[in-house]
């Protein structure tokens, strides 16, 4: 069977499964719609949370980013997992005990203020909508690369599928499809990784393979990789730092608290029956997430070595008779000369996968020195040793441009894995994008139907009417998300970082103070949220333009790029959170204490006893 047909079959089968679940798991009440009935098993919820959390960016782009950033890429790994420790201990169990449907509802009740609730809704909408653009483009990209349909058609199909289970099933439909999507995406990620780890090191477990020696030699894989990239003028893989250690520290912290403060993740913990379940469920979520997140660095390092070896035979991996990557122990141990003329791959002899990806534009070759061979190195290097070798070899610039996404998407092809593995990667990419999109859509639609329509505009709405309002909001949110996917604003790439910045600087501190500070009042909380949000947007917009409109950057006003101790705008969320805490405490001290019944509410949120299944009752 050819690859195209097989891909249609595998992706089609996964879609049929999601639709089957949609028909089985329809929402009959607001409780079903907002919290999946409230009786989800903690392990099931952990798995659904993992799919909810791991987006198109985690699945498609993260390993490529780590591959480029080397050690620096660790900030994504630690940041996006360490946040779960905070979520598990500081937020999830207490919000579960509180027992309402949405995050803004907690903020509104705890700070006894509709304005606080409205500010929280605003933060939630901005964070979730910016985040969803990336998912819709991910769906379009996967469709167009693997299934040969246009980007736009891909987005329409994706919208249709999400519509079926999210509109009719709400959180209930989303939960069970996310479980199925987790299974698809995790096998799509780990199977190719195991093959590649085995080929390179003889150890099929990627987490161990990355720390092993290359098969048939006593050379450690990471040592070899460091040597190759350093010789070619790149920074050493295991010690390359983005900006400064300080920036890396703050960036990691921003991702951690941003992760803990993202509403679409928090609401998943409202679906388990007990407070104790919410605690364990966060642990299970992290187990399922870590399976992918500990595999990613192995994929990153191994694919990087593979890629260099493909275009430079002196690295010591070669294509065997069947076209597979195989280790050549003699060349590896001898550290052959990467700058030898015949080491660079002749363009006409490049493998088939390179030809396929050249057609997508993600891989480009330009023969700068006119020798018909591919030279791939860091032309901007300052290392004198590398510069001398480049000069002597007559290289005139790096000739290969590689989009980072190729690291995951083309991985099975580079290693010449069977076609069904390639088809599985397509289904996995779609599962990752759709599951996250659905979770975000639920957060958006429940904020609209429950926090805006029901609480502010039509308070005496019946349950049936609210369920209908929820479904209509969901349908409307899908259309908006689809439209944004079809017409991605030019700033799309920068927006996911903004979502973390907003969650970190506004929502996380507000929720945390709501639980851990009994005396925090509404004036403090609102001022804190607004200050955190404002300072973060101010710093980001200074670099990227006001609302990302090109030409409206105002770097002069803040004294140049990264002027705050060299912190990049993506890393700024943690600083925004500090501002939030500080402003909240100052304002709190100047205004009067929260009323008695609110302090009693905080007392009751802190103890598990008395928790009931969430039913939205007031």
């Amino acid at each position, binding site marked *: 069977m050819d690859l195209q047909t097989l891909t249609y079959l595998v992706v089609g089968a996964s879609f049929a499964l999601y639709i089957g679940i949609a028909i089985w798991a329809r929402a009959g009440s607001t409780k079903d719609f907002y919290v999946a009935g409230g009786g989800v098993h903690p392990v099931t919820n952990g798995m659904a949370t993992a799919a909810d959390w791991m987006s198109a960016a985690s699945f498609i782009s993260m390993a490529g980013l*780590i591959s480029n950033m080397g*050690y620096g*890429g*660790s900030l994504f*790994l*630690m940041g996006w*997992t*360490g946040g*779960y*420790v905070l979520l*598990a*201990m*500081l937020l999830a*169990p207490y919000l579960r005990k509180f027992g309402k449907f949405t995050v803004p509802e907690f903020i509104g009740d705890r700070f006894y203020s509709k304005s606080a609730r409205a500010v929280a809704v605003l933060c939630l909408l901005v964070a979730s909508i910016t985040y969803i653009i990336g998912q819709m483009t991910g769906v379009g990209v996967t469709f167009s690369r693997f299934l040969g349909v246009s980007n736009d058609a891909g987005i329409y199909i994706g919208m249709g599928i999400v519509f079926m289970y999210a509109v009719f099933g709400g959180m209930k439909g989303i939960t069970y499809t996310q479980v199925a999507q987790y299974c698809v995406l995790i096998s799509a990620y780990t199977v190719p990784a195991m093959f590649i780890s085995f080929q390179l090191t003889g150890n099929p477990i990627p*987490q*161990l393979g*990355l*720390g*092993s*020696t290359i098969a048939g030699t006593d050379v*450690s*894989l*990471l*040592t070899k990789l460091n040597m190759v990239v350093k010789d070619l003028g790149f920074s050493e893989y*295991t*010690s390359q730092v983005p900006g400064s*250690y300080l920036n*890396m*520290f703050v960036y*990691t*912290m921003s991702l951690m608290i941003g992760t803990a403060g993202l509403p679409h993740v928090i609401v998943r913990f409202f679906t388990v029956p*007990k*407070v*104790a379940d919410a*605690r*364990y469920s*966060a*642990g299970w979520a*992290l*187990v399922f997430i*870590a399976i992918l*997140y*500990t595999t990613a*660095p192995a994929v990153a390092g191994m694919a990087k070595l593979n890629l260099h070896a493909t275009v430079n035979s002196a690295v010591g991996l070669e294509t065997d008779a069947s076209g597979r990557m195989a280790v050549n122990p003699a060349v590896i141990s001898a550290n052959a000369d990467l700058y030898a003329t015949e080491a660079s791959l002749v363009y006409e002899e490049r493998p088939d996968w390179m030809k396929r990806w050249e057609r997508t534009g993600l891989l480009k070759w330009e023969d700068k020195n006119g020798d018909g061979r591919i030279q791939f190195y860091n032309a901007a290097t300052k290392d004198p040793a590398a510069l001398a070798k480049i000069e002597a070899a007559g290289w005139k610039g790096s000739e290969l441009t590689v989009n980072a996404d190729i690291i995951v998407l083309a991985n099975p092809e580079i290693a010449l894995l069977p076609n069904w593995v390639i088809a599985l990667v397509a289904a996995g990419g779609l599962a990752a994008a759709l599951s996250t999109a659905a979770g975000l859509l639920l957060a958006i639609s429940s904020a609209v139907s429950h926090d805006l329509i029901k609480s502010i505009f039509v308070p005496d709405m019946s349950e049936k009417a609210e369920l209908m309002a929820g479904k209509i909001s969901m349908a409307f949110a899908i259309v908006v998300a689809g439209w944004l996917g079809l017409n991605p604003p030019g700033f799309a790439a920068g927006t996911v970082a903004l979502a973390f910045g907003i969650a970190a600087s506004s929502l996380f501190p507000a929720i945390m103070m709501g639980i851990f500070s009994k005396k925090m009042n509404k004036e403090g909380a609102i001022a804190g949220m607004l200050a955190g949000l404002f300072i973060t947007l101010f710093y980001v917009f200074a670099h990227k333009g006001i609302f990302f409109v090109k030409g409206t950057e105002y770097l002069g006003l803040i004294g140049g790029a990264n002027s705050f101790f060299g912190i990049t705008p993506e890393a700024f969320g943690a600083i925004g959170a500090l501002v939030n805490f500080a402003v909240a405490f100052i304002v709190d001290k100047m205004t009067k204490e929260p009323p008695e019944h609110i302090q009693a509410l905080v*007392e009751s949120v*802190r*103890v*598990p*006893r*008395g*928790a009931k299944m969430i039913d939205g009752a007031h």
Partner: protein
Amino acid sequence: MDNNSAAYWQATLGLLAKILVVWFLVSFGAGILFKDALDNISLGGYPLGFWFAQQGSMYVFIGCIFYYAKKMGDIDRKFDVHEE
């Protein structure tokens, strides 16, 4: 606030503080601040600091959450505020 709930909250905060120290040490500590020093030690083919940043910190995070869930359950029962 009666004595029991004050003591319960103190016990909770004590547990949180302990775990947050571990959480900080394995990621920000071993993975960033002391990374260069730890890299002189190797774990298999991994430099140790690099291993903490790309593998070890995540394994310890998982341990942290399950330890927290278990200990918190013990504290709940000790102060008799657990769920039925």
